[in-house]
């Protein structure tokens, strides 16, 4: 996305957020190429070691390199954070658009299904999946993704409902456009931006949820690092080495904040008109 028009918003915060996300993203993608110690190799003599030339951020309670774990953790946290909302935005977005456009029984069914999904206790669902399908990153993405569908459905349906009544959609109908053409050419471009903004907020929420699930032991299976599991493990030595929990917490906080800032800026840009005049 381009920078906000005409200095409508101070761009410095947005720029910082984008730089941070780029940094984290690159680190996660190129984690294997970076000259880092293995994130799972234990150095039982260097438990909770303070930072030195070899271990820039020190070691954790099992003597594993913190920096390496943070960067490899970014890989898992970001892939869960990005992929789970993709499930939500595609399934939920499509369902919401169809429900809002066609109305009738389809809408009743969708809204009903979404309500059922919302009412289902998320932890029980996560427990059931990990118990029967096993604990893996893929299952984690699936669980959080499915739980995110209702929110995306609702946003897409609400936007579509108001768009369907707009004159330009009626105009397309009057021209004899097919339903699929109206949905793809007239409605989708107008639903896309609000959904993208919501998607970025979804990413932020998912990173936190992944953290919480890993913290509870329902997330990524050990010894693979994720920010949430690092906080969980760091908790045991809060009194001895509080930075073990705080470092991943700070990184997670910054990333979530950055996604929120980008999401908000995008939402401010949703309106194609440059201010009311």
């Amino acid at each position, binding site marked *: 996305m381009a920078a906000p*028009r*005409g*200095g*409508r918003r101070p761009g410095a915060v947005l720029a910082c957020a984008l730089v941070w996300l780029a940094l984290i993203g690159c680190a996660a993608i190129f984690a294997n190429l970076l000259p880092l110690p293995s994130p799972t190799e234990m150095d039982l003599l260097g438990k909770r070691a303070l930072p030195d030339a070899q271990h820039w951020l020190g070691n954790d309670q099992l003597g594993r390199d913190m920096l390496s774990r943070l960067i490899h953790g970014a890989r898992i946290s970001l892939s869960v954070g990005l992929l789970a909302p993709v499930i939500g935005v595609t399934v939920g977005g499509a369902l919401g658009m169809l429900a809002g456009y066609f109305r009738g029984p389809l809408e009743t069914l969708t809204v009903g299904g979404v309500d059922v999904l919302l009412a289902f206790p998320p932890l029980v669902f996560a427990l059931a999946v990990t118990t029967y399908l096993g604990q893996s990153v893929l299952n984690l993405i699936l669980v959080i993704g499915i739980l995110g569908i209702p929110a995306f459905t609702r946003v897409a349906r609400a936007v579509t409902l108001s768009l369907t009544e707009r004159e330009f959609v009626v105009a397309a109908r009057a021209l004899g456009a097919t339903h699929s053409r109206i949905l793809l050419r007239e409605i989708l471009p107008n639903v896309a931006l609000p959904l993208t903004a919501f998607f970025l907020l979804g990413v932020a929420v998912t990173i936190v949820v992944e953290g919480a699930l890993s913290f509870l032991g329902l997330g990524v299976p050990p010894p693979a690092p994720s920010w949430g599991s690092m906080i969980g493990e760091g908790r045991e030595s809060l009194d001895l080495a509080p930075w073990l929990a705080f470092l991943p917490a700070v990184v997670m906080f910054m990333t979530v904040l950055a996604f929120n800032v980008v999401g908000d800026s995008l939402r401010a840009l949703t309106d194609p008109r*440059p*201010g009311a*005049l």
Partner: protein
Amino acid sequence: MSAPLLSIEGVSVELPTPRGLLRAVDRVDLTLEAGRTLGVVGESGCGKTMLSRAILQLLPKRAKLDGRVMFGGRDLAGLSREALRRLRGPELAVVFQDPMTSLNPVLTIGTQIVETLQVHLGMSGIAATKRGAELLAAVGIPAPEQRLRQYPSQLSGGMRQRVAIAIALSCEPKLLIADEPTTALDVTVQAQILDLLAREQQRRHMAMILITHDLGVVAGRTDEVAVMYAGRVVERAPTPRLFAHMRMPYTEALLAAIPRLDSAPHTPLPAIGGRPPDPTRPLPGCSFAPRCRYVEDDCRAAKPPLADPERAGSLYACWHPR
């Protein structure tokens, strides 16, 4: 001759926008005496609404106001918020275009009228309710006691505008500003509301500024008319004189562009070509020059002042008047 009730001296309003500073009102002078009606006519974006906001001191926060708004001998721009609050109602009142948004949807009609009366006139609840019903009856609302208990959404558009007028009139203001009061209403209801405003204005000897885009509305119901274009008053004259002899080509073109009832069907209308200039890019000459059919070179060079060179009581801003 007594001092005018309202005198606007060199008022400009500037608004910052993403595309630059927008001069919505550009050095406007106007005077209005007690009991008189002034029509302000112009198209959207000509600055007529911003001018009314400047008089009411209800400009958007970012707007910058220059010049003086003298009302009853005081400069309104210099008054405190508290002094202004006490002024609005008993001295200055306003009726907006859309009564649906100017009335509070979650309060009953009665509450809204009674509150105004209690706050400004210090009436007791019972007296205020009785007066509220009288006011509703005066603006032509049948069964006023029952209406007091209803919410704005339960009334039709015309009835809501009557309620808004009743609230505006409740404290006997000296000046009523009616900003497009009938634009949102149907034709048959528009006539009734305009009649009501004219009747109450005369009965109360109240001054009124009637802001509209419709020359037809001001023709029969104002003493004087000011025509605005691109933030400036471009012509100002007593109503009969203005319609009898329009000097500014814009006024003439605006009147000609209205479909007439007495012309035959399919008569082409003398339209004004083009559109108003970008208010963030002021022109050095006359703002209407790019659209004017009588334009000459000097029109583009310098802005004509609003003046009355013939001393005939008709002011216009044009180098080549009709």
